[in-house]
């Protein structure tokens, strides 16, 4: 009993540690008007055309990055699983590189490489998306890889092929629906990386949401707190959407010993 009591104390302390700053930020964000609690800071944020512009830009970039990253990673992960399991350690090393190389190094490399012919891409959003794809690579690869591990990819693809399915059908009707949850988590991780990203957007001079948040944080008092709460709500919203979309997708294995 005594041990159980202590564990509740630790849970309470942990909860306070996580939620106190959040509650404090939220309360602070409500103090935009002197003496009363109000949503005026939120109203300011939403009425700022820059908020909408930068958020929409980042949203677009996020969608393009997600599509590009998945289009690259799904075939790669399937190929590694089915044909090149020995290449896995190599891919794992590649997947660590974005953690080891700081974004500032990455962006200077990109600028140096793509600011002159034959590929002068430095003014094109393609380069920004390419940079985001690199940053999201570890998360996307791991999510897709985990999804493929959870199903028996080889057997399912072979079963589909023996039933006459070509690769495209096998991919879209069998493989992807069964790793839907992993694809969603890859997509949302990429989304949160892109929406909050600062270095690439600043150095490549794009009006993205990350630089906007930094700017607001530097110049204003209550609006940054409101923005933090909005970002937090967006993240939670994304998680809820993920849960809702993944509902109804059952695990592949049946428990043996049921009614025969």
């Amino acid at each position, binding site marked *: 009993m005594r041990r159980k009591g202590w564990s509740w104390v630790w849970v309470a302390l942990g909860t306070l540690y996580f939620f106190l700053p959040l509650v404090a930020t939220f309360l602070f964000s409500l103090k935009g008007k002197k003496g009363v609690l109000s949503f005026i800071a939120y109203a300011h944020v939403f009425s700022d055309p820059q908020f909408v512009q930068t958020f929409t830009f980042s949203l677009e970039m996020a969608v393009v990055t997600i599509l590009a990253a998945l289009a690259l990673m799904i075939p790669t992960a399937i190929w590694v699983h089915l044909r090149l399991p020995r290449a896995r350690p190599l891919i794992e090393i590649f997947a660590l590189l974005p953690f080891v190389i700081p974004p500032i190094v990455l962006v200077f490399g990109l600028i140096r490489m793509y600011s002159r012919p034959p590929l002068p891409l430095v003014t094109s959003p393609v380069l920004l998306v390419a940079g985001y794809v690199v940053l999201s690579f570890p998360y996307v690869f791991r999510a897709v890889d985990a999804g493929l591990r959870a*199903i028996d990819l080889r057997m399912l693809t072979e079963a589909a092929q023996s039933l006459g399915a070509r690769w495209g059908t096998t991919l879209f*009707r069998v493989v992807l629906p069964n790793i839907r949850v992993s694809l969603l988590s890859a997509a949302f991780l990429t989304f949160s990386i892109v929406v909050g990203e600062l270095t690439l957007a600043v150095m490549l001079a794009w009006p993205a949401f990350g630089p906007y948040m930094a700017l607001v944080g530097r110049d204003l008092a209550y609006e940054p707190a409101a923005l933090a709460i909005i970002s937090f709500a967006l993240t939670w919203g994304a998680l809820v959407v993920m849960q809702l979309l993944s509902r109804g997708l059952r695990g592949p294995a*049946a428990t*043996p010993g049921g009614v025969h």
Partner: protein
Amino acid sequence: MAFVELIDIEKRFGRHTAVDSFSLRVEEGEFVSLLGGSGCGKTTTLRMIAGFETPTSGRILIKESDVVQMPPNRRGVGMVFQNYALFPNMTAGQNIGFGLKVAGRHPEERERRVGEMLALIHMEEFRDRYPHQMSGGQQQRVALARALAVHPSVLLLDEPLSALDAKIRMRLRAEIRAIQRKLAITTIYVTHDQEEALSISDRIVVMKDGRIEQVGTPFEIYNRPATAFVASFIGSSNLLHAIVLDPEQGKVAVDGQEIAAAGPLPGKPGQEVRLTIRPESIALNNGIPSNNHLKGTLANVIFLGSIVRLVINTGRSELLMDTFNNPHLALPALGSDVTVGFAPEACVPLEREREELLSPTERPASYVPPAAGD
């Protein structure tokens, strides 16, 4: 004309040869099992027929056309896997209809065929269940229906029952055989379970180290094993090292005691030959004069339920003998001298093993036949 024909198939993975010199003809409507221990190449052979592996050399003909370069989705071969391989995102009905949908069949036709298949496996009420809502046995029946729905020319089953418990296994194998007979579909079945292979097949291909040891009906494989491996792999058997006395008359000596096989034997007088005798072909103290007799001592008695197994020591050899259990069974005491008898037909000479043919092993330098009356 064979329906499926494998001609001199070889499959190497790097330095390892998984399948070697494999040739087999399977007739239309026939049920053939590939039987062997793990790593004997049986599953690799099946996967080559399905198109998931490409032979290093050799040809595979299905209905007389060479399919070696044909992708799996164009071979018209149905496959049932060990772990069912049902698509988790589809119901039983959708799984069964998948191949028809891929083939672009009309929805009405698809529905009708799915209904037929569910009726065939007696699972009409499971149409809307997802794989995780079914037991292993039910999933495997759906997998079988799914493979059959597209009217494949050949049905391949890769250890379909080994993930199931014993009771379900027995029931499902009878069901598989009944469905196969009803549809008269050419079937190749991979198993490591000899009882399964014996009970279900028209013919069995026993494999070892990537090669065929013997091909025959279950009756032939069990009663006339060609090699020591087949004799020991299928059921229990006694392997006796005998010395040829008179090859024409089939006479040999086992531990100095003379016995006779039914027909002429390979080899010359004085050469060693291996014989196999099934334990159930041996009886205790039977006085039939035409029979062979061996003397020995009773070393052990093992109670196996319906059968009692006696271990008899004849000197260099140990002989197993099975007798049916009954409540009045009176057995000699352990250590006492016993005489066992068996018909000459029960003595099956074995071919020499490949490795023996390749590298000569030690043979007895000389052999002195037992003195007359000994």
